[in-house]
């Protein structure tokens, strides 16, 4: 029997994944030896994330580089997304430090799970192979199932975890079926080969393939929480620990969008006439249902969950636009969204105290007088989410609309702009509570420094990306 030839392994392409994996194992191991004080784990995790972010540039300037027979790629999209993931994970870890202490989450594996999740996200954003994308999604999802339920004594956290898990597994089935049909009808699992075969017209009108596309829309639609596959989002967001909610709303969502974009815009752009309609419907529904749902909410986490559904609608427009501007705007949107969301959740965490998280909007009444700075930051984030210039949210939206207009989707843009007008209705509600209501009860806020630091980063990012978006846009477009 002949020996198996040595596979072609390109370790430099994998650098961020490898670095981060090593650090993750390190966190796992060190956790065994440290006692109740987990700050050394935080330190190791942050170092790992930083190193991973740096090592994302290991390939130098000669991108895009395909390796592993076209299963893995280092390109503009993957490098930038790696940065977003490292940033969001780092912010999530920073948010957790004081929150975990307060809420009594004392498992060291918490940090390693976030890092595992980050590894999965990087894999997901860099894969150009259906198998790899599938595994990447699963790594991310499994870590999130556990993270959502990490407050084991809290029934809400358990419930969130269970709901997320069941629906996630269900959606995985659909996603897998979709990938299978795509594989079967094109004969390849590599996105590049699929695109090539579609381009040559061999398998164009295969009805089964269109079916596969719909199934993919469901699978990815679930992961990014778009209507009608969004139902889990409010419940899970509400039940999960707040830093995990923030993390879920940014990192994994960005990763899912990366894969979404890769599969649809790079793998099967030839099928655009059929999936454009489908995705447009999903996007429009997401915007409307997300906004309508948010109006009624009184819990800030649920409100943000619905608002994130509507944001998914906007971001889907970038996928529909499927041009380079679209990918760049996707990157920009996710980055600015990360700053806003982590800033908001930082404030949400600051407002809570042991045993009472103060998540109702009423708890924000009068914040503007007691803590003007915090209220000001919150106002900034809310206005930015609504898309008020010159804040990050506006530039991001503008950029996406630009990409869509280039492809002639004026009607989608009109609906999106209309929706962003509606969305102010509930973003303003938060501001009204902060500035225009008498406080109920007393604020017992301990302004813990690390969380404040995250809020400050959020503010700086929101302002920077709004006023001087130039460098970042340049990076995103390359």
């Amino acid at each position, binding site marked *: 029997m002949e020996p198996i030839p040595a*596979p072609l392994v390109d370790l430099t392409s994998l650098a961020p994944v490898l670095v981060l994996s090593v650090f993750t194992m390190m966190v796992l191991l060190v956790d065994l030896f440290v006692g109740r004080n987990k700050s050394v784990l935080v330190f190791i995790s942050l170092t790992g994330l930083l190193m991973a972010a740096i090592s994302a540039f290991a390939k130098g300037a000669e991108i895009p580089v395909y390796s*592993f027979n076209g299963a893995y790629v280092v390109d503009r999209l993957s490098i930038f997304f790696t940065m977003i993931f490292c940033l969001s994970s780092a912010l999530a870890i920073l948010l957790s430090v004081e929150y975990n202490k307060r809420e009594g989450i004392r498992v060291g*594996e918490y940090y390693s*799970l976030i890092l595992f999740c980050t590894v*999965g996200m990087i*894999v997901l954003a860099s894969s150009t192979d259906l198998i790899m994308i599938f595994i990447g999604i699963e*790594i991310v999802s*499994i*870590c999130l199932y556990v993270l959502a339920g990490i407050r084991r004594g809290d029934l809400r956290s358990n419930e969130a975890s269970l709901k997320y898990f069941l629906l996630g597994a269900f959606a995985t089935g659909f996603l897998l079926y979709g990938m299978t049909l795509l594989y079967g009808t094109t004969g390849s699992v590599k996105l590049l080969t699929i695109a090539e075969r579609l381009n040559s017209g061999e398998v164009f009108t295969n009805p089964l393939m269109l079916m596969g596309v719909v199934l993919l829309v469901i699978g990815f639609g679930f992961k990014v929480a778009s209507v009608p596959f969004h139902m889990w989002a409010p419940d899970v967001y509400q039940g999960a620990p707040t830093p995990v909610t923030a993390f879920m709303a940014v990192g994994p969502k960005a990763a899912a969008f990366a894969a979404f974009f890769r599969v649809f815009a790079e793998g099967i752009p030839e099928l655009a006439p059929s999936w454009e309609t489908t995705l447009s419907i999903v996007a429009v529904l997401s915007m409307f249902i997300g906004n309508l749902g948010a109006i009624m909410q009184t819990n800030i986490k649920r409100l943000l969950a619905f608002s994130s559904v509507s944001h998914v609608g906007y971001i889907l427009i970038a996928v529909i636009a499927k041009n380079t501007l679209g990918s760049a705007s996707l990157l920009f949107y996710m980055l600015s969204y990360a700053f806003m969301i982590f800033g908001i959740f930082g404030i949400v965490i600051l407002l809570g105290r042991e045993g009472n998280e103060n998540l109702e909007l009423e708890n924000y009444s009068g914040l503007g007088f007691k803590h003007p700075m915090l209220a000001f930051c919150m106002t900034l984030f809310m206005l930015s989410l609504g898309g008020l210039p010159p804040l990050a949210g506006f530039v991001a939206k503008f950029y996406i609309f630009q990409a869509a207009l280039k492809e002639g989707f004026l009607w989608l843009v009109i609906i999106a702009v209309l929706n962003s007008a509606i969305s102010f209705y509930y973003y303003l509600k938060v501001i009204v509570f902060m500035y225009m209501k008498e406080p109920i009860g007393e604020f017992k806020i301990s302004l813990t420094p690390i969380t404040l630091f995250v809020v400050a980063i959020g503010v700086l990012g929101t302002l920077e990306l709004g006023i001087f978006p130039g460098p970042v846009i340049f990076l995103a477009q390359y």
Partner: protein
Amino acid sequence: MELLIFYPLALVTILLALGVVFNTSPINSAVSLIGMMLGLAAVFVLLQAHFIAILQVIVYAGAIMVLFMFVIMLLNLKAGDDRAWKMRERNLYLSILTGVLILLGLYKLTDKIQSTEFGETAKLPDTFGTTIEVGTKLFTDYVLPFEVASILLLAAMVGAVVLAKNKVD
């Protein structure tokens, strides 16, 4: 000839799958699932995927289902004394809706499958689906997913331990 094996096999797997869904006893459901998986292993053999067929028996029917059984036993769930094991309560509209949805989906799927032209089936070499073939592929072209899967399993293990371990220090 193969059709003669296929049809009964398909029938049995479908019946066993229905058994999983409609059985009110947890142990019976699990046993039906094991049976269904063994049936699928046979289908894989029919498709000349010998390696996967073996895996199906070892991993699915062996490992995964044992886990299911273990948890059912651990939680000491019995049929009858817990409403959970029943199907959801009767609600005419919902039942009709569910049925219609599933049938519609199934109809569409089969319709698409039947209206698709697949072309000629390739002539399979004798070595198709053997451990050597699949293994070679796995360790050359697909070495990356293979390795990344280890992260997946590790993460799952850590997660399961975190959630299920008895007491956090």
